């Protein structure tokens, strides 16, 4: 079967700073200047108070695995060659936001719930770099 190209994020005008951030090795989220809510995924306005006074802040890049799965069969076409690979929801505990990602740089079967992880960046195309996570180095 021909290998299909990986889908790139379908970005919007207000999310471009996020993708510019990942290109430069930074994981950004938004902070509402009015109510103080940390906003992720990026929004036009704060999803709590509707304020457009949102500023971009750099994340610690540290989180924990909330849930995960190792994809072994029946992946979407573009990901068949990657199997087995890990899809996970990571909680950024300090920022109180969560995101879908892949856990990389480890044996997929070593991933566990609540495992500490840290962000790494994987270039997908000239325009898009994806934030992924690896087991956190012991600190």
């Amino acid at each position, binding site marked *: 079967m021909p290998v299909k190209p*990986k*889908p*790139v*994020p*379908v*970005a*919007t005008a207000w*999310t471009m700073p996020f993708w510019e951030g990942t290109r430069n090795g930074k994981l950004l989220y938004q902070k509402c200047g009015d109510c103080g809510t940390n906003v992720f*995924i990026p929004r036009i306005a704060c999803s709590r108070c509707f304020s457009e006074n949102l500023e971009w802040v750099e994340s610690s890049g540290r989180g924990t695995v*909330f*849930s*995960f*799965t*190792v*994809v*072994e*069969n*029946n*992946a*979407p*076409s*573009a*990901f068949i060659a*990657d199997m087995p*690979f890990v*899809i*996970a*929801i990571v909680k950024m505990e300090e920022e109180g936001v*969560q*995101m*879908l*990602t*892949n856990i990389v740089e480890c044996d997929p079967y070593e991933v566990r*719930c*609540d495992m500490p992880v840290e962000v790494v960046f994987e270039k*997908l195309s000239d325009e*898009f770099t*994806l934030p992924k996570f690896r087991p956190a180095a012991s600190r």
Partner: protein
Amino acid sequence: MSDLKGKVAIIGIGEVPTGRFPEASAIYHAIESARRAIRDAGINKDNIDYVLPCGAVYSPPFNTELITGRVVEELGLKNVSKNCQVFSGGSTSSCGIDIAASLINSKAASTVLFVHADRLGTGVDLQGGIDLFATAGISHEWEVPFGQHYSSIAALAMTRYMYETGCTDEHLAAVCVSNRKWAELNPHAFFRKPVTIEEILSSKVLSTPLRAKQSNMLFDGGAAFIVTSAERARDITERPVYLLGEGGIVTHFVYSQEPDITRFGWARAAEKAFGEAGLTAADMDIAEIYDSYPIYELIAFEELGFCKRGDGGEMFLRGDTWPGGKIPTTTNGGMLSQGHTGGGGGVAILVETFRQLMGKAGERQVPNARFAVETGTGGTYMDSQVSVFGTEIP
């Protein structure tokens, strides 16, 4: 309160078997289901004045035809004032009945035909189906680029739920076994051979811990029902099925943004639906729960109040949900055994709810069933929808 309690009733149901029918078009399934529903109600077809076709996930030209009146023309309906598509994925069942009921209660309609059909079994191959559903309802910016798809979505809920509650692989397999016990008695179900926990747990892993036999299968099929006012229903049939309560909560679009993938909005939706009906889970004779994957059936079952969180698996395992059990659950076999026909997989579960309450469920009839709860959930489990029905108004 939506004030719909006891105001409307279902008077007829129709369904075609679920399976692979390469020779039949989606319109065949739609027309045949609708025709059966009209015959079942025993009404003159020209009394139908409002048609609500359910959107098709796959079958784009058919979708367009649904919207533009094909069902009305094929059935030769002469007094239809409005034809309007309804679609909220797997929650089309609960949302559809709510809309039909609201139209009747507001006098915008007197008799509504709701009809679903799709061709997910023969319209698309397996990899095509995976690819289609790996983009349908999944964020193209935040999840598609990471390989998210429906198996991984179910697996993410399973992993966390099992971690938090101690639920085992056997418990989740038991949900499939329970549904299959019902499907063995359902001539419209695709999978009708008995299945064991061992067989399920030895099937190939799709996304850990989800296995192939814990996954719904895409098929062709159709289902329809007819709704009218409670008052009119009593003149038409001796056993109308009343809508008693409705509750729903839309929680998310991007799955990873839902803070609780082990509960969703079920408890809130159930509180509203049961509250409106003036009943509780303990009053229910049947639970008809949307089951595209066993984890979602189990979570909804528990959050509706049939047991404490974490205790549901044991109930499915020991037979409480089986034929003859104390709370018969998903009695058509669900999408795990009857098969998943798109938005209509939920409509089939809704039609089964009516069938049981009407006393027309044949071999799998739950004796003396008076009250039943039905659930639906659309997209990547974006919403939790709960409906309560009964043969009497408490």
